[in-house]
């Protein structure tokens, strides 16, 4: 009986994590180059139940669910024109490389700006790398040569925050750089809202299961073995 309590609670915990991830997606609905996440869930190991009298196997019982992994959808998103010469977007696959104090990081958010020494930097002042691995220069008129900006191939990208990803770089990618445009956020508001409602109802169902089990336990404790049947 108590097993059911913990199984239902594990479902509620997993849905909480999903909600946290959905809240983060919705908060980034306007972040250019943002990639939406998904939390996958997996069942805990099965427990084999057997008949207490005969020892015959009854079947498996799962011990609940756990949030397993976060999967990031890195597919390219539609690009919109902004007309700003330092707004860059990659059409197709590939990543911008930026030089951070911790090493090279990758991003799809091309909201860049110029530094005082004339290099192209991201919002946090990290230099944007060209295809030759050197920082890209902004010309006197405030433009950059799109062909000089590096588009890197990246395997196993992992989110690091501040639009940056880590991963194993593997040469040039097929995407092309467009100036005066930004890649939209990968958050689909409609799908995310539906996910949010579905997750919410699953959470609610977990609570109902706990309440039902609780009621049964209450009856067991107060009515079973009561002389007047608990009335």
């Amino acid at each position, binding site marked *: 009986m108590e097993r059911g309590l913990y199984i239902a609670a594990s479902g*509620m*915990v*997993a*849905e*909480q*994590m999903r*909600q*946290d*991830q*959905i*809240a*983060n*997606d*919705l*908060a*980034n*609905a*306007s*972040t*250019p180059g943002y990639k939406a*996440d998904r*939390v996958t869930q997996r069942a805990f190991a099965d427990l084999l139940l057997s008949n207490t009298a005969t020892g015959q196997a009854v079947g498996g019982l799962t011990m609940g669910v*756990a*949030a*397993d*992994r*976060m999967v990031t959808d890195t597919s390219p998103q539609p690009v919109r024109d902004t*007309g*700003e*010469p*330092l*707004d860059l977007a990659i059409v197709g696959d590939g990543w911008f490389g930026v030089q951070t104090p911790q090493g090279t990081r990758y991003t799809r*958010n091309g*909201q860049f*700006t*110029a*530094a*005082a*020494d*004339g290099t192209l930097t991201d*919002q*946090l002042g990290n230099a944007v790398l060209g295809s030759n691995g050197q920082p890209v220069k*902004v010309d*006197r*008129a*405030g433009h950059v040569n799109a062909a000089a900006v590096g588009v890197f191939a990246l395997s196993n990208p992992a*989110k690091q*925050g*501040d*639009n940056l990803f880590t991963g194993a770089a593997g040469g040039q990618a097929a995407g092309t750089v467009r100036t005066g445009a930004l890649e939209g956020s990968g958050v689909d*508001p409609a799908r*995310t*809202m539906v996910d*949010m*409602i579905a997750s*919410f109802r699953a*959470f*609610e169902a977990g*609570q109902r299961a706990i*309440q039902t089990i609780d009621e049964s336990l209450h009856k067991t404790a107060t009515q079973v073995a009561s002389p007047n049947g608990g009335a």
Partner: protein
Amino acid sequence: MLEGLYSAAAGMAAQQQRIDGVANDLANASTTGYKHVRVGFRDLLYNAQGGSAGPTVLAGAGAAAGFIGRSQGQGALQTTDQPLDVAIQGPGFFQVKRPDGSLALTRDGSLRLDAQGRLTTSDGNILQPEITVPRGTSADKVSIAGDGTVRVGAGRPLGRIELVTVPAPDGLQPLGGNLFATGAQSGQPTAAGNDTTLRQGALEGSNVDVGDAMVDMIDAQRSFQLASKAIQMQDQMLEIANQVKR
């Protein structure tokens, strides 16, 4: 659980900042030489979550917005036929001296003559290098060529309006009154290239596109609403969790 509440709240704060930027742009839709702001977005730190789940599930902390500078796009030229209105076509700024002696940059070219005949901006900041028109000259007689050479009628040049640029216009500090100060973030001013020209009898309008600004505002408002829904949902989940024990 509470992470989600704060991530969504961070998203709302970011949209609020964007709305502030758009509101300022719309308020300056008719300001001479005004350049609209660029609002940048980024996601925040990711924290590993859940003991049993292992470190592979990350909870993001929401979004942040920041002003990453100003658009340097050309504003539309408005013909005023005032002889001392000068519009800059191309990148560059007028350099002016403020009353406290410090230098500032501006693209607002509604010039006038002060009591000593010097060319100044409408606020009285003196154009650098100083150009003095002989006393008693009517403003109608002043001619300003495309390269900045100032003459009276067909006379000899009195001086030249020199335009400057900085390596990082996004790093200029706004001083209000259409003025900007240079600093370590913007780099030192240098002479603008020959492709920048002046046009007498015109002013550069604001480069705020009211249509774009309105669309931005609607987008920001809806994104704000989306994040607020996430907060409501998290709140309801907390309520449900509280009802587990009746």
